[in-house]
């Protein structure tokens, strides 16, 4: 074999080996990559509704603004300035030009119409679009009388919220609370109700008797509250449709801290007799009263699990108020809180995954969460005095009362909402001081 051919053979062999080495970098399947980090920020959205001219001066003309307010109030959405929109509302309602909406970085486009269909009825028809994917996410069509325009806006906001976040919305809900006014020595406390955005506010009692701890019924048609009227302070039931209240039976002793069973058929409450406070249940149909706890401790603030089979309550039987869970029929109560300080006002999440509570430690107050087995305790709000959490029906937000000291004058007390991550705290608009919030069920579904 000549030197040249040997050289060429070695070169070819080397080149072949080199090719094999290089192709070893390539792989059979796709390159797999984990994407774990990103930006947590509100979803940028655009909303454009084409509204009939004769509706512009009515509530129907404000449906778009109300939907925007609802979504932005959740802090999970951010509206893109309408001045940046490049497509007219009427055209976007027919067919969005996605390129125009991508330019302004709208991730979601809500486009639709509000039409007068006669006889005092309006129709809201809207679609939410995935701008980058160029596809419809959800279509909503609502019909109703003009006076229900606000609720239609809230329902539309709920549907969009739910489709984009995967969580149920909470915008078509109301909040009961105690409206407070006057100096501390002559405090007036009235029962009040409002939409979750502060609209449609009205007083349910006239302030002649103090009211405390209002609780929405599961169907949203009524409420329980504690009041100093009659021979002894007691629990009252309020019918929201009829606009009147009645005492919930006559009991020896003082009853307070009532909460409905999830099915609305009975009430759990505390009853104080002879210096001892225990948990009782009251069957609303038969009037039967059943004692669940016994002993010399103060057992109070019972709250049912969403299945109605367990009750969490606060008790000082171990020396200081802590949280206990027992069967809804009574029996052995298992302690679930073990931290320093005092645990009060427990309330079970409608999803069953958390118990919210008020905690006080060394003179400071907190709103906290823990799982029903007592694990995972964390504190999501704190202050001079924060207390009395109440769950939104989607189980992802809480309302609570926050008191700020005002030296020389009456302290300020307002209702705030916060999400379960401890973020997005915001004050609810109320005409006066406000306390003891009770967040009602979704009005459309009653859940």
């Amino acid at each position: 074999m000549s030197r040249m051919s040997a050289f060429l053979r070695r070169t070819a062999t080397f080149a072949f080996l080199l090719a094999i080495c290089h192709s070893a970098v390539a792989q059979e399947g796709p390159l797999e990559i984990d994407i774990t980090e990103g930006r947590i920020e509100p979803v940028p959205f655009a909303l454009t509704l084409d509204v009939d001219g004769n509706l512009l001066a009515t509530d129907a003309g404000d449906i778009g603004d109300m939907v925007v307010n609802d979504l932005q109030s959740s802090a999970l959405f951010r509206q893109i300035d309408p001045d940046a929109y490049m497509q007219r509302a009427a055209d976007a309602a027919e067919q969005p030009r996605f390129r125009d909406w991508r330019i302004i970085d709208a991730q979601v486009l809500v486009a639709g119409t509000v039409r007068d269909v006669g006889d005092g009825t309006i129709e809201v028809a809207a679609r939410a679009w995935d701008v980058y994917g160029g596809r419809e996410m959800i279509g909503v069509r609502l019909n109703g009388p003009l006076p229900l325009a606000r609720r239609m806006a809230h329902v539309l906001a709920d549907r969009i919220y739910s489709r984009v976040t995967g969580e149920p919305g909470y915008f078509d809900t109301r909040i009961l609370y105690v409206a407070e006014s006057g100096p501390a020595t002559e405090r007036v406390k009235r029962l009040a109700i409002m939409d979750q955005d502060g609209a449609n506010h009205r007083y349910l009692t006239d302030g002649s008797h103090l009211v405390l701890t209002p609780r929405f019924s599961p169907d949203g048609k009524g409420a329980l509250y504690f009041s100093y009227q009659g021979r002894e302070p007691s629990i009252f039931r309020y019918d929201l449709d009829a606009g009147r209240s009645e005492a919930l039976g006559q009991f020896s002793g003082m009853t307070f801290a009532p909460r409905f069973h999830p099915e609305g058929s009975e009430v759990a409450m505390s009853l104080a007799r002879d210096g001892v406070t225990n948990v009782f249940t009251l069957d609303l149909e038969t009037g039967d009263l059943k004692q669940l706890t016994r002993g010399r401790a103060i057992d109070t603030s019972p709250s049912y699990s969403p299945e109605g089979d367990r009750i969490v309550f606060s008790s000082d039987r171990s020396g200081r108020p802590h949280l206990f869970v027992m069967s809804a029929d009574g029996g052995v109560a298992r302690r679930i809180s073990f931290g320093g300080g005092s645990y009060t006002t427990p309330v079970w999440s409608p999803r069953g995954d958390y118990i919210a509570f008020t905690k006080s430690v060394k003179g400071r107050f907190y709103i906290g969460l823990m799982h029903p087995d007592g694990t995972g305790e964390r504190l999501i709000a704190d202050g001079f005095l924060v207390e009395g959490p109440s769950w939104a029906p989607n189980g992802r937000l809480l309302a609570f009362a926050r008191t700020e000291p005002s030296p020389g004058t009456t302290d300020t007390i307002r209702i705030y909402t916060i999400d379960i991550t401890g973020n997005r705290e915001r004050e609810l608009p109320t005409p006066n001081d406000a306390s003891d919030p009770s967040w009602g069920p979704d009005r459309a579904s009653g859940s």
Partner: protein
Amino acid sequence: MLRDLSERTPAPPGPEEPPTKLEDTIEQLAALEPSPTPLTSETPEQRFTRARIYGLIQRQIQANWRRPPALQEVDDMAVILEFQLQPDGTIHDLQISETELDRVDRNTLLRPLLDSAQAAILRTGKITGLPPEDYALWRRVRLNFRPQR
């Protein structure tokens, strides 16, 4: 307290350190990059190349990913999407498997995750800086979107 460098006494000379091997340097650099699962047949240079490509694509997609804020409290959520890259890095042929779509249909919380993942890929549009000589390595990409708490 201020350090007075003028009072420092030089340290006595230590034993002479052996020269750094190129292979060791590449190993160290590869360890700094986001680490794909190594192929057992890879050399350190190949591992470094794959790690660099992995990091390039990961960073550019993550820069455009708006994580669904409502998923902050949820563990073990993931969606998988695949796409192909043209030689200039342009993303095309974005695909979601039927299995993945079925999973999303069964769990409403996966829907916003899938939407955000798609939007992240489409907003990115093009991956820049990829080595053309290694096109076979990055021509097809599978992304596993797994938001961490």
